[in-house]
């Protein structure tokens, strides 16, 4: 195949912001090339530079062995299908398509013949006298394609042309576009952010991010052998795991070694491992390479998406003491008062003031009628920086009082030196009524226990994803309950037509060639 377009070291800046960071790319004759990336990755900018609507700050664009950077758009042998079609509203369909040919001063009968052929190509015969606003989005799109193709360009540029269409029409147009490209046999350069669109139509996909090309390859290459974590996560669903290469053909993650087909990495090199969800098979317990517990199963139409946890996250257990203490009533003043005992870390005790004590104990007093709050006039307690139980008394002006306990403890604290994660939480006291009033129980439990997880090295917060307990809030009784908080463990996403019950332990199996290893470049 002949090389048709060559971008060499294209750099583009907008107001001091670099949008393209030195793009090198070759495009050949008769190729369907897709520039794929999220918005702001520079794909449209690159297309507009090729179209002649923008000029690069550095680099060269070679078209058919000729440098075209200084050529105005109307002298370039390529045509564009614009994002919003850009059909001329003051002309009918025929005049729109004929526009380029009339500019070239072709004779009327030749123009008529060519326009009619194009209308046939895009399946809109008999529409030539319609006005633009009488057409649907999909039809306008086809006219825009016909208007560009009638000039017989060597390259057709398409800037997210299907973005404005609904899903069904988009699918139809994808097939239509591919057919047209094969029929006219010219190069199509297609810009999109839709990975599925790219996989369906392209001969070659160029994955871009932040003004740089991440990978160039056929759809199968890009899907099966993504070069880095970014490409893997952008194209299709994947399980991306950090691991290390023990030696060629042997990769290690979560303390186990697995055979793979990749080689050529340094020994003990940290790598990203990609396993596609559809490449993992669910088998019986102990029959696969890994065992795990089914966490969820979602129906996705053709397949089920099952999440299997093969390794638990870091966990800390706390005890919740549930009491059924009613508020204290003062007959004389017609006041109620209530408060909870609470636990406090030995290191925090010195910094505690009255406001914080009131908040921690959730202490409040209110009038019997009207529910008006009464202020707490006195907070009495004496604590030492020593583990132990200390009485705490709250009093109102009228002398209504309640006594609870402050338990000074060392906080429950778990450090995983290997994964460099810390998890901590407190035991706590709650009243039955408070529990029943809780709206989002998992979040409330996290708040009450002050459960946190963090990265030991960076001190960054890590989300606590699991809150496990075995009681039903709706009819909870007095007593002690264990609640465990844990971070996200190792989870595998699996696409399968089989189904699995939650909490069932299953085995997971995959082939060595389905483990894709990528170096961690740029991360």
């Amino acid at each position, binding site marked *: 195949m002949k090389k048709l377009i060559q971008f060499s070291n294209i750099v583009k800046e907008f107001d001091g912001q670099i949008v393209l960071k030195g793009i090198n790319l070759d495009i050949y004759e008769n190729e369907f090339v897709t520039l794929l990336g999220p918005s702001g990755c520079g794909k449209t900018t690159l297309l507009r530079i090729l179209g*002649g609507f923008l000029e690069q700050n550095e680099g060269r664009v070679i078209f058919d062995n000729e440098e075209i950077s200084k050529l105005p758009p109307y002298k370039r042998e390529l*045509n*564009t299908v*614009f994002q*919003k079609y*850009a059909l*001329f509203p003051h002309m009918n369909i025929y005049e729109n398509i004929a*526009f380029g040919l009339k*500019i070239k001063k072709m004779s009327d009968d030749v123009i008529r013949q060519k326009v009619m052929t194009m209308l046939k190509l895009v399946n809109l015969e008999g529409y030539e006298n319609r006005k633009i606003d009488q057409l649907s989005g999909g039809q306008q799109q086809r006219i825009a394609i016909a208007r*560009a193709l009638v000039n017989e360009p060597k390259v057709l540029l398409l800037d997210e042309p299907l973005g404005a269409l609904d899903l069904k029409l988009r699918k139809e147009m994808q097939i239509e576009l591919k057919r047209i490209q094969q029929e006219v046999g010219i190069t199509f350069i297609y810009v999109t952010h839709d990975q599925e669109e790219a996989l369906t139509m392209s001969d070659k996909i160029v994955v871009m991010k932040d003004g740089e090309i991440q990978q160039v390859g056929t759809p199968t290459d890009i899907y099966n052998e993504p070069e880095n974590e970014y490409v893997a996560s952008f194209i299709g669903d994947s399980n991306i795991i950090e691991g290390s290469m023990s030696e060629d053909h042997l990769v290690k993650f979560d303390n186990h070694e697995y055979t793979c087909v990749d080689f050529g990495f340094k020994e003990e090199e940290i790598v990203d491992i990609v396993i596609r969800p559809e490449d993992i098979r669910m088998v019986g317990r102990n029959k696969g390479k890994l065992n795990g517990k089914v966490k969820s199963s979602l129906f996705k139409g053709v397949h089920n998406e099952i999440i299997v946890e093969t390794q638990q996250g870091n966990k800390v257990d706390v005890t919740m003491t549930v009491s059924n203490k009613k508020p204290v009533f003062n007959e004389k003043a017609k006041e109620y008062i209530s408060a909870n005992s609470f636990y406090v870390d030995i290191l925090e005790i010195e910094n505690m003031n009255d406001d914080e004590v009131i908040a921690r104990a959730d202490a409040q007093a209110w009038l019997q009628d009207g529910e008006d709050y009464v202020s707490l006039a006195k907070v009495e307690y004496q604590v030492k920086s020593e583990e132990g139980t200390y009485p705490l008394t709250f009093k109102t002006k009228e002398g209504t009082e309640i006594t609870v306990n402050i338990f000074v403890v060392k906080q429950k604290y778990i450090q995983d030196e290997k994964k460099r994660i810390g998890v901590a939480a407190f035991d706590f006291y709650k009243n039955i009524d408070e529990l029943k009033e809780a709206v989002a129980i998992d979040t409330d439990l996290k708040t009450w226990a002050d459960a946190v997880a963090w990265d030991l090295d960076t001190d960054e917060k890590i989300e606590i994803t699991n809150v496990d307990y075995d009681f039903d809030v709706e009819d909870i009784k007095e007593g002690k309950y264990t609640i465990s908080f844990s971070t996200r463990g190792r989870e595998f996403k699996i696409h399968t037509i089989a189904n699995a019950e939650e909490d069932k332990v299953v085995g997971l199996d995959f082939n060595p060639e389905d483990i894709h290893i990528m170096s961690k470049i740029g991360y």
Partner: protein
Amino acid sequence: MKLFSRLVHPYVVWISIFVLAPMLLIVLYATTTSGNGTLTLQFTADNFIRFFSDELFINVLINSLEIAVITTLICIAIGYPAAYFISKMNAKQGAILILLITLPMLINMLVRTNAWIGILSDNGVINNVLGFFGFEEVKMMYTRFAVILGMVYNFVPFMILQIHASLSKMDKSLVEASNDLGANRMQTFLKITLPLSMPGVISGITLVFLPAVSSFFIPKLLGGGSELLIGNLIETYFITTGDWNFGSAISLIMAIIIMFSMYLTKKVDKGGRD
């Protein structure tokens, strides 16, 4: 919705009293003889016959239309390029220029027109400068030139604003598409930009032609007696002569001519777009 539609009622009353009634009165005056009592109305076509049988009146009418057409054409010639370049600028610069164009309109038209007398008169600014360089004095005041200059000066902002509005509304990708299809700048302008900005040009024409054809104080101030326009004629018959019947007839003729020319421009505009 019902509340809103009721809000329109006072306006309907207002329109009927202050717009519709006077117009009907003009029609009534134009078609009756003078000195009528309310009960003894005498209808007549004399007023119209008088207008069309006197060459003087016909000439005034033609002169008015001529000056209005010339003014409008000059306004397009100045206004279109100005609007075009403003629409090509970035938003900030464009907004400043539009502000500068609208700014003089905040000052009373009469004051601004009077200022021209100081500039154009025989011992005004221009003639002083010319004299300084040894040129002969040029007579500018009380000529057709001065009248047209005054009108263009007063009305050109309307043209610029209208054309600018339609140009800046235009989808920029249409120009890119035209370039992409092989049309150079000139071809793109003639085939895309110009036709798509025609609605702006048409409303600009309406906004310039109408006041120009019926203006009476600009020809009075800058044209003196030399340029008698239809507006002056109407003014004379209403205020100086007191012949309200004939004055009304001229007004009516004027109104019909204006309505007809508006209809024609609309028609031309539609024809251009089909």
